[in-house]
């Protein structure tokens, strides 16, 4: 029997949603501050309108939905799923008001792409967008990469079990420190330290390469936020091609890889346990999959001989591949070149890399390295069971911070999520094909959206069909939250309609 949600359920959800909204609203003061300094008054007004709406709603929700009760699992998941949808709409509002997006749906697409750290974009005339709006595009990637619930957890929610439920709902099931609020603050600490280092590196490189100092540091902070949070937005329409600088690309690769590493691993490295990098299953799987997928991509690129020498092939092939594998989506080629200049085999290499993603508890999307490792270990265990005598005891273990045995429960969970991602990739590809796009291009774009990557082979434009825009928004949302929160929200709506008291 499906039980109808009670008023307390709804009030509790509303209360925490209000808190997250207030946290999200506060972050808008950052672009407002920049807008005032640069005297970009119309953009400041766009954000002022939005802040007013957010605070109005947030104050009402936190006041009238207060119950004093802790969140249960269902409520925690629903808060997260709803918070991401509400943040998408409210984050899109200042973008839409700028006039650089064709419709509000396009602005919502951009906002979800930013929050989910995807990087697919529908902006028009990006090269004339204000600094204020441009900073917001990159900032939402930074916030989304950390997790918008993490923002609220760090500043608004006191450490209790409800906080942990929201933390898990946002696809972060690993605690670095015993307290989830301390974990959130540690994630912020790591990110801020890298933010300072990254911005300085990009800024100085930009100045050396002839950019104006203000632009160099503005681009530096924006590119860092989207590289470390494996997002893929860039301040100019040419993406990374704008800079014409190999050193810039090398720093970006370093930042993307740092962003794709588990925050728990960062914690151990920070505490001097450097051996963990070599021993950890995620890093070894990551290294292995990069090697395999790059081999496929390089063989594919060799077929058409687009790049006449090995250095060029490596520079272009490896950058797009690592950008796809880490789920970032930065590009040093134009989107139509994927179809026109890259062979099908090279595209398949990039699609596989995109579908795998980085580490769990990192800023990347997709299936993730730990699950790939667990699935392979479980497969190895099953093969051994068949080969070895029946009386032999077969045990498989892997190293992830500590030694862990591969249990059926762990393998089942990893397989389930893997299967869900594969279905999501296929679903988007099917919709793409129904809209008239070829199979490989549809699969490429769908995998890019669902795995929160952002590489595009040219399908994502303001002119693409509305149904495809909505499909990609759903894919980005479900892919970022790793399904559980989304399924709980769907179940909640079913219970509201069909449930009994």
């Amino acid at each position, binding site marked *: 029997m499906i039980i109808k949600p009670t008023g307390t359920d709804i009030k509790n959800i509303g209360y925490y949603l209000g808190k997250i909204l207030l946290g999200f609203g506060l972050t808008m003061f950052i672009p407002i501050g920049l807008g005032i300094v640069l*005297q*970009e*008054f*119309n953009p400041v*007004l*766009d954000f*002022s*309108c*939005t*802040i*007013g*709406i*957010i*605070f*109005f709603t947030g*104050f*009402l929700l936190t*006041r009238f939905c207060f119950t004093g009760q802790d969140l249960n699992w269902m409520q925690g998941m629903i808060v997260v799923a709803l918070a991401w949808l509400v943040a998408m709409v409210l984050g899109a509002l200042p973008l839409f*008001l700028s006039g650089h997006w064709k419709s509000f749906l396009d602005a919502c697409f951009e906002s979800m792409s930013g929050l989910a750290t995807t990087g697919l974009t529908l902006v028009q005339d990006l*090269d*004339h*967008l*204000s*600094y204020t709006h441009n900073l917001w595009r990159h900032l939402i990637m930074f916030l989304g990469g950390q997790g918008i619930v993490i923002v609220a957890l760090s500043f608004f929610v006191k450490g209790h079990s409800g906080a942990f439920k929201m933390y898990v709902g946002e696809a972060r099931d690993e605690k670095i420190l015993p307290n989830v609020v301390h974990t959130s603050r540690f994630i912020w600490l790591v990110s801020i330290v890298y933010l300072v280092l990254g911005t300085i590196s990009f800024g100085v490189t930009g100045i050396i*390469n*002839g*950019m*104006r100092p203000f*632009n160099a540091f503005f681009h530096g902070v924006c590119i860092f936020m989207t590289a470390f949070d494996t997002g893929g937005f860039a301040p*100019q*329409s*040419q993406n990374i*091609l*704008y*800079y*014409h600088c*190999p050193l810039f*690309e090398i720093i970006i690769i370093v930042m993307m890889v740092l962003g794709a590493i588990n925050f728990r691993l960062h914690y151990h490295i920070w505490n001097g346990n450097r051996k963990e990098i070599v021993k950890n299953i995620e890093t070894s799987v990551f290294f292995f999959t990069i090697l395999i997928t790059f081999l496929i991509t390089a063989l594919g690129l060799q077929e058409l001989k*687009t*790049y*006449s*020498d090995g*250095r*060029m*092939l490596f*520079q*272009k092939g490896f950058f797009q591949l690592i950008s796809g594998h880490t789920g970032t989506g930065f590009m*040093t*080629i*134009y989107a*139509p*070149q994927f179809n*026109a*200049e890259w062979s099908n085999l090279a595209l398949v290499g990039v699609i596989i890399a995109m579908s795998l993603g980085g580490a769990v508890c990192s800023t990347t999307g997709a299936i993730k390295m730990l699950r790939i490792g667990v699935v392979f270990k479980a497969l190895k265990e099953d093969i051994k069971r068949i080969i070895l005598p029946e009386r032999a005891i077969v045990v498989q273990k892997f190293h992830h911070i500590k030694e862990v045995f591969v249990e059926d429960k762990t393998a089942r969970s990893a397989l389930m999520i893997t299967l869900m991602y594969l279905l999501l990739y296929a679903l988007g590809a099917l919709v793409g094909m129904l809209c008239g796009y070829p199979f490989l291009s549809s699969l490429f774009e769908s995998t890019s959206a669902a795995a929160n990557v952002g590489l595009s082979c040219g399908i994502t434009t303001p002119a693409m069909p509305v149904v495809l825009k909505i499909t990609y928004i759903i894919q980005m949302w479900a892919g970022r939250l790793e399904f559980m929160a989304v399924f709980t929200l769907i179940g909640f709506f079913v219970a509201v309609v069909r449930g009994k008291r």
Partner: protein
Amino acid sequence: MRKAKSGRKIERLKKTAFLFLFLVCGFFGFKSSCFAQATASSELIGRAKYYDGKTVTFEGEIIGDIMVRGSKAWVNINDGSNAIGVLVDSRLLNSRLLTGSYTAKGSWVSVSGVFSRACPEHGGDLDIHAQSLAVIHDGSAVPERIDLQKSGYALTAMLAAGAVWLALFLWKPEKARKK
């Protein structure tokens, strides 16, 4: 006699027509060689293999930064569809050039140079190495006019949020009930 006269007339007419045609064709031929038609960015990117290594003319607005690197400089030119990186000799640049941004409409220039779909000098980038650069329209500052309607909306939204906050700050139902 008459036949001979009319024959000469026809001959003269033919000569005049031929001269006219020659002049017209020559004029248009000269004009097209002076002002080669610009190729669109979408055409260059979409048919990069065809244009690879050829001299092309590309027109558009200079955007972002002009990145001077020694005797050369990178200029990114946007024709309305895409921006393409153009490597120019620094001497071709002048102080009149303005770059497009939120506050400015950049100079509209025409460059002529060798197009590469994967430039071996620049790590496989799609770019143009320009031999000439001509300013077609000068850039100009775009002054910002404050949108009064937006100001009204922003003020209303902020006032509404402030009023709710104030009302909730003053209204303490628990305390009232206790009293």
